């Protein structure tokens, strides 16, 4: 998952960079331990996880597909825009491909800023744009053996929750 490390010191974070698209499991503890930044008083981590139900049906697991080159480029742009717009010290977004089991992380977004308002707002900005815009798709595998491509993002149904 790690593209390159510019520092071996975990407290000196903000230096570690990640691939935006990864076929490997996302290690949340590893991601958050590399997110500390001396200028950041707020670090927000959002983990988008696979739930065991979808539209009243029991989900076994999800399988993610991406147009990797374009998704990688778009997530780069979204994260860089968020950094400028919200004055972040550090931001990371990694989206999984392949099979992701219930309770596992499909996407992680970490945002670090001097104060919490910006870190929360930026995190929401990144996850919303990636979900709506990045060329990534999920296929739902249900426990009854059926398989379906998920429809577009349904967050308009849950916006107030």
């Amino acid at each position, binding site marked *: 998952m790690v593209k390159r490390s510019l520092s071996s010191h975990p407290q000196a974070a903000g230096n570690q960079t990640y691939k935006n698209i990864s076929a490997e499991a996302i290690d949340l503890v590893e991601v958050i331990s590399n997110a500390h930044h001396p200028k950041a008083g707020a670090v927000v981590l959002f983990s*988008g996880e696979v739930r065991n139900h979808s539209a009243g049906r029991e989900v076994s697991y999800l399988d993610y597909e991406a147009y990797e080159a374009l998704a990688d480029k778009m997530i780069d742009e979204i994260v860089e825009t968020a950094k400028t717009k919200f004055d972040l010290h550090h931001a990371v977004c990694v989206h999984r491909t392949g099979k992701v089991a219930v309770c596992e992380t499909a996407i992680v977004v970490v945002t670090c800023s001097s104060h919490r308002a910006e870190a929360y707002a930026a995190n929401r900005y990144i996850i919303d744009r990636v979900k709506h815009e990045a060329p990534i798709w999920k296929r739902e595998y249900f426990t009854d053996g059926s398989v379906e491509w998920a429809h577009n993002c349904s967050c308009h149904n849950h916006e107030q929750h």
Partner: protein
Amino acid sequence: MEKVEVQLFAALTDHFGRNVAVELSGDQKIAAVIDALEKQNPKAVGLLKDCRFAVNENFVDLNYELRDGEKIFIIPPSSGG
């Protein structure tokens, strides 16, 4: 006859497979490729109408004129996250 390489994703692969070559006799616009795919598989018409298109990792519209050897990527509505 010009042959255009097309790559598809997600639900579109159920209709066309991952890659398909489309032969165009007239203009080389993206719209002509989509017309050809719709004729090839009318069941995919609804989905194709909701898609975006990319060439060389940039989004393009239906009026984009394909140049020699350019491959088109057809992108259904996102469902990531």
